[in-house]
């Protein structure tokens, strides 16, 4: 499964399952020290296993840079 912050790059060299989140280069899982955010992205990325049904499929995560609240993830 590939992760990426640039959808066009994923489309050039897709893996069997692909996840895109529009974050900065070098910060696929978010911000330093934000474990809840990082777990949320990771958990959702792993969810692609069940959601992608064709090889090369891409799951776009909806998160916006610094405009989300990730409290629920830590409450699990």
């Amino acid at each position, binding site marked *: 499964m*590939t992760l990426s912050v640039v959808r066009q790059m994923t489309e050039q060299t897709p893996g069997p*399952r692909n996840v895109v989140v529009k974050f900065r280069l070098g910060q696929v899982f978010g911000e330093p020290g934000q474990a809840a955010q990082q777990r949320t992205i990771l958990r959702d990325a792993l969810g692609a296993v069940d959601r992608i049904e064709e090889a090369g499929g891409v799951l776009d995560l909806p998160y916006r840079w610094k405009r989300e609240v990730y409290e629920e993830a830590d409450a699990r």
Partner: protein
Amino acid sequence: MARWWNRLQSAVYTRLHWINALYARVAGTKEVEIPLPPLVPLARPLNQARIGVVTAAGVHLESQQPFDMDDSEGDSSFRVLPADALPADLTITHDYYDHRAADRDLNLIYPVERLGDLAARGEIGGVAPRHVGMMGHLYGAQWTRLNRDTAAQIADVFREDEVDLVLAVPG
């Protein structure tokens, strides 16, 4: 190309998302045609699966040889990273993205601690005992070598450890 110039460029395009999208369009596909890998169902459900990480963000142990920043085509070698390596034992050698944030928290590009969190919560079966560090930004002979040799060698590492799913994470 001088390393300072590469670092300066990376600091700019790390913050300008549209440049990366444009670059991907202009650069097009690489010299080697890569067939689309098949979609293989997981042998076990996620809560029983062992998960590994390949990070292309230039992560390696301090004790390992750094990636070659002098070859303009990159460095297609890889480093095996023990899952129990401490963050203080790991470092990043990669001039083609701004990794100041990842230097503070490797989980941004090497989420092994976060995988451990999910394993502790029973959401995944476990974390692979070994992961792999390599670098993106590969061209020419280095890109060819990655596809011809290195990728299969990396796959062997995970196959030996009976890993069910590998996350390929960029820098």
